[in-house]
């Protein structure tokens, strides 16, 4: 609004003589000729009222005037209405800010008068000195508004009770604020919130002046985040995907930004940041708020929970979400310990775990606290049998005093599914990996489920048990997995070459063993598929070569032979070479194009 206002007001006032000389090139020069031909007096007359430039244009410019001369007053009124409406739409908060200022000013005047009446003789209270100053400062109260509010309230408290009641009226012009609060059902949460404050001391300022103001601000607080959206949105692209839910997030985000403790993010978060902006607008917005509070607020929570429960399979179109889920699954898996998950069905496990998944990730840095946290959490899930995320966490919240922090965080992440840490971490993933993972998600899920069933039997035992146990493939054939010592050696070599420090921990080795089991399972499936496709009952060299080609392990540049030479010990190479056909094929393959090798391979296999 500021831009369009200024130029027109300047041009006429600084008189028509300057106008031709004025040399701000480009757009602003264009409207001026339109204004100048009009009589200077008229222009001057219009400028003070020139709040809406459109109106000015219509009334001032001769062409427009002519155009509108034909119009009936009704039409003109309609135009004006449309324009104003458009302006209101385009700058939605313009009106609010203005109204806010008015609302600010009126009660203040009121109070000043009242002060004069009430205390002509009484001594001024030191705290009161701040509030008039702030009143003078006027519109720039967005930042320090909080402080001044407190100042006001304190002043009134010291003054009189009647003043206070007046003040309450002035604030929101009606009794409206109370209603929303009831509809929110904030009673219990608020208690929680206060408890919470006790628990997490880091934010004393929050609780400082707000007890009084709670009633007033609960309603307005909910609107705010919408405005804040776009900026915060920058954190993670995944928010973009769920446009419909944009309105839901920011509160939560806000909350997570500021403090981790707020149990009910909307109230808590909005308190601090924005109460001032919305101060006077209660009447304007309340209808909206109401509907939103009633319908949206519960649904939001439910929605997020639904997301969690929906797991990876849902077609919500929230790709980011999906991929999160899949990526994090293994994480949750590893941290959360056994018992709950053995019992539950795989899908169940996933529901439950998604809630947890974010947590360990976010806390990746703190190695120490892991064990306790995880254990405690899994216990809590145990109690509730992992049926429902929402209730569970709430219960936990009340029950475990020690774990307040944790539960809060978890809760936040359940609801918002996007705390900052998580989001930044997620942004680290390339989309391709996300896609890839989501592709393999179903398979991975099955496997993970199986894994847990197996793991359940063993508990946290070492790999020796893995070694000992015989496994049964899906074809009912027993097999033993590779010896852990060998796997460890291999893993360590590669870990060192890829720059990892230290040894491989037992859990890491366990995970690696698991991965290699899965790998062989997958490989066996693939190889048998190839062999069956060729109507063979035996897996041939050609199958594995095809597989490696399809895995993009070999291509025109890297031949299997080259790979073998690089990675296999000499004995094995010799083994490969001893059989005449194989090396011949390989040499030829190394020199020739890939197209020839397929046929050649077949021939040599036959000979």
């Amino acid at each position, binding site marked *: 609004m500021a831009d369009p206002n200024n130029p027109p007001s300047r041009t006429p006032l600084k008189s028509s003589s300057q106008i031709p000389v004025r040399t701000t090139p480009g757009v602003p020069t264009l409207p001026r000729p339109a204004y100048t031909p009009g009589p200077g007096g008229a222009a001057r007359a219009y400028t003070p009222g020139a709040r809406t430039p459109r109106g000015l244009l219509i009334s001032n410019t001769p062409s427009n005037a002519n155009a509108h001369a034909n119009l009936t007053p009704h039409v003109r009124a309609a135009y004006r209405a449309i324009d104003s409406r458009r302006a209101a739409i385009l700058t939605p908060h313009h009106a609010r800010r203005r109204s806010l200022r008015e609302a600010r000013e009126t009660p203040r005047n009121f109070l000043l008068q009242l002060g004069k009446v009430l205390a002509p003789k009484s001594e001024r209270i030191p705290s009161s000195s701040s509030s008039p100053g702030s009143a003078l400062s006027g519109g720039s109260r967005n930042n320090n508004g909080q402080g001044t509010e407190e100042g006001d309230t304190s002043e009134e408290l010291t003054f009189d009770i009647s003043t206070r009641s007046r003040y309450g009226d002035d604030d929101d012009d009606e009794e409206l604020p109370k209603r929303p609060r009831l509809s929110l059902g904030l009673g219990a949460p608020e208690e929680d919130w206060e408890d919470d404050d006790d628990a997490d001391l880091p934010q004393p300022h929050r609780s400082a002046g707000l007890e009084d103001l709670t009633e007033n601000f609960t309603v307005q607080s909910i609107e705010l985040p919408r405005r804040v959206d776009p900026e915060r949105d920058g954190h993670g692209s995944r928010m973009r995907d769920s446009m419909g839910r944009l309105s839901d997030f920011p509160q939560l985000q806000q909350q997570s930004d500021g403090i981790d403790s707020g149990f009910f993010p909307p109230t808590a978060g909005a308190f601090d940041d924005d109460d001032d902006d919305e101060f006077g607008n209660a009447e304007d917005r309340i209808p909206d708020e109401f509907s939103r509070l009633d319908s949206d607020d519960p649904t939001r929570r439910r929605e997020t929970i639904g997301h969690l429960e929906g797991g990876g399979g849902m077609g919500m179109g929230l790709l980011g979400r999906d991929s999160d889920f899949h990526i994090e699954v293994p994480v949750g898996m590893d941290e959360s310990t056994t018992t709950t998950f053995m019992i539950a069905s795989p899908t169940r496990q996933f529901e439950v775990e998604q809630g947890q998944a974010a947590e360990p990730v976010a806390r990746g840095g703190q190695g120490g606290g892991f064990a306790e946290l995880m254990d405690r959490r899994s216990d809590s899930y145990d109690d509730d049998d992992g049926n429902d995320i929402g209730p569970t966490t709430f219960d936990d919240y009340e029950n475990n005093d020690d774990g307040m922090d944790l539960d809060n965080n978890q809760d936040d992440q359940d609801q918002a599914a996007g705390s900052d840490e998580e989001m930044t971490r997620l942004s680290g993933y390339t989309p391709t990996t996300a896609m890839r993972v989501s592709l393999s998600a179903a398979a991975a899920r099955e496997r993970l489920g199986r894994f847990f069933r197996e793991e359940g039997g063993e508990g946290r035992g070492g790999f020796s048990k893995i070694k000992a146990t015989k496994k049964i*493939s899906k074809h009912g054939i027993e097999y033993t997995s590779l010896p852990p010592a060998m796997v460890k050696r291999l893993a360590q070599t590669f870990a060192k070459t890829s720059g990892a420090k230290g040894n491989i921990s037992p*859990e890491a080795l366990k995970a690696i063993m698991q991965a290699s089991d899965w790998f062989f399972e997958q490989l*066996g499936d693939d190889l048998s598929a190839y062999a069956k496709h060729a109507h063979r009952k035996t897996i041939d060299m050609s199958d594995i070569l095809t597989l490696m080609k399809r895995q993009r392990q070999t291509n025109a540049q890297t031949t299997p032979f080259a790979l073998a030479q690089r990675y296999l010990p000499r004995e094995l190479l010799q083994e490969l070479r001893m059989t005449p056909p194989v090396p011949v094929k390989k040499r030829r393959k190394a020199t020739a194009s890939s197209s020839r090798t397929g046929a050649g391979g077949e021939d040599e296999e036959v000979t």
Partner: protein
Amino acid sequence: MPGRKAYPRATVKKIVKAHANCNVSKNVDIMIYLDYVLFMQTLMKEATIEAKQGGERGITGRSVKKVTADTLAKFKG
């Protein structure tokens, strides 16, 4: 690696046989082992990256599990 027994050939063969329900012809297991080695290399590389990103010291079970699904998908024929 040299000097030691590189890997239990029989075990690898048995594993693959069990999963594929097919016979495995001669010396294929070497190539399978080669593939496994490549898989392990990729897995450890990814796990190392993941561990570094997560600010961990060395490779942990968490980092490995996280990249497992990914790497397996890469090695899906």
